[in-house]
């Protein structure tokens, strides 16, 4: 029997990379999964890949009306949520001195504001004993040049996790942060130059990037009852990069 048998999961930004790998694994473990993404084409592709027990919902996690629509669909189709994986996020680089209002607003609107309202709007549908996961970044514990705004937006989520787990303790909802390091995802492939890739690999003790599937197994752990006494954690999945 799967670890998420009969559970309903919502995964934002679930059409590629780590979140898509998690959606696949969740379904293999018995869950029904809603995935969101901004582009219909990518949603269709993801839904096809996942194959069964999945609904794709087009929407931008920074847009509150899109979020309303998402949770209306979830409510109509399943009526409840056991697992929310708020994973939609962007990471663009600009060093101090060149930071624009637009860069700040875009990053914080999606990563912080979008994540907050994703969780808040999901809350009425949440079953007691549910699990909320947010995607952080090990950049928040490091000082990668150019990633100050991104890192700060991700660290804000840690404060949310700590506050919300306390506010939601009566409902036994756990809130954790999954904190990936350098992972070979389509998003990273598209932004990293070969030099940057080599640099990141040199920082990882084993010398090779993580795979999306290695993040998905950790997401499954945090989503399932295996982690029933794990709460408010930043679970780094970075091959030890941050620890050394």
């Amino acid at each position, binding site marked *: 029997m799967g670890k998420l048998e009969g559970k309903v999961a919502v995964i934002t930004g679930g059409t590629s990379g780590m979140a898509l790998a998690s959606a696949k694994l969740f379904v293999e473990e018995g869950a029904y999964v809603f995935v969101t993404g901004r582009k219909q084409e990518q949603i269709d592709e993801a839904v096809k890949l996942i194959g069964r027990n999945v609904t794709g919902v087009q929407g931008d996690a920074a847009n509150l009306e899109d979020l309303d629509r998402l949770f209306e669909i979830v409510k109509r189709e399943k009526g409840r949520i056991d697992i929310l994986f708020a994973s939609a996020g962007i990471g663009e680089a600009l060093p101090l001195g060149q930071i624009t209002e637009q860069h700040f607003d875009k990053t914080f609107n999606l990563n912080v504001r979008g994540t907050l309202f994703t969780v808040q709007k999901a809350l009425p549908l949440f079953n007691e004993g549910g699990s909320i996961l947010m995607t952080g970044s090990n950049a928040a514990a490091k000082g990668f040049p150019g990633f100050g705004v991104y890192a700060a937006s991700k660290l804000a989520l840690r404060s949310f996790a700590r506050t919300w*787990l306390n506010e939601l303790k009566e409902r036994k909802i756990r809130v954790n942060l999954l904190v990936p390091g350098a992972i070979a995802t389509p998003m990273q492939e598209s932004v990293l130059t070969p030099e940057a890739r080599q640099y990141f690999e040199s920082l990882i003790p084993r010398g090779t990037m993580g795979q999306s599937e290695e993040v998905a197994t950790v997401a499954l752990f945090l989503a399932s009852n*295996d982690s029933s*006494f794990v709460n408010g954690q930043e679970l780094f999945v970075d091959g*030890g990069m*941050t620890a050394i």
Partner: protein
Amino acid sequence: MGKLEGKVAVITGGSSGLALETAKRFVAEGAYVFITGRRQEALDEAVKQIGRNVTGVRGDASNLDDLDRLFDTVKGEKGRIDVLFASAGKGEAAVLGEITEEHFDKEFGLIVRGTLFTAQKALPLINDGGSIIMTGSVASVKGFPGFGVYAASKAALRSFARTWLNELKGRNIRVNVLSPGQVDTPDSQRLDEATRKMFEALVPRGKMGRPEEIAAAALFLASDEASYVNGLDFAVDGGFSAI
């Protein structure tokens, strides 16, 4: 198929509490487990409870001769190790002003020195790709009065994890610390009612952890599910240290 099918695990201090529960879970997931403990009686009882695929080796993890004997036994019976869970440790309280040399030497002798030599003596037997787990404590990131020496000894393990994972990267051996919070063990059941209540009040859900919940986290760190998880001080405390 179990998550540790065909794996060999060594668990020190495995004859009671969290480590015993972990040993049971590891065997249920397909592993062969060596457990250690100081008292033969408790060890025999633990072996009986685990039931199969287990060898009990009597010994004190702060005694280097005992450790040699342990790993000789493991080498003779299985020849290799995939998972080392260095869990032997005991927390005694003494406030600053009343700390004796004996208290310090005992805590650091078992928790720091003992854990170090457990790992070092296991090393020649650990397979590439293996997993080392040490038992920390959330006390190491808090300031419980009386537990300064204990907390510091557990904090030292985090530094070991970070150094060793780097030193062992060529062999793909992962090193993590599992730091339990308040857990309902035979030890905690000996606490007086007021202390138990105080501990429970610190846990957001208002109830202590169950040994099975720690075992599930240890299994996660031991298995390939955590293949990209390395160097963590992983608190399993129901959110106590986060708030």
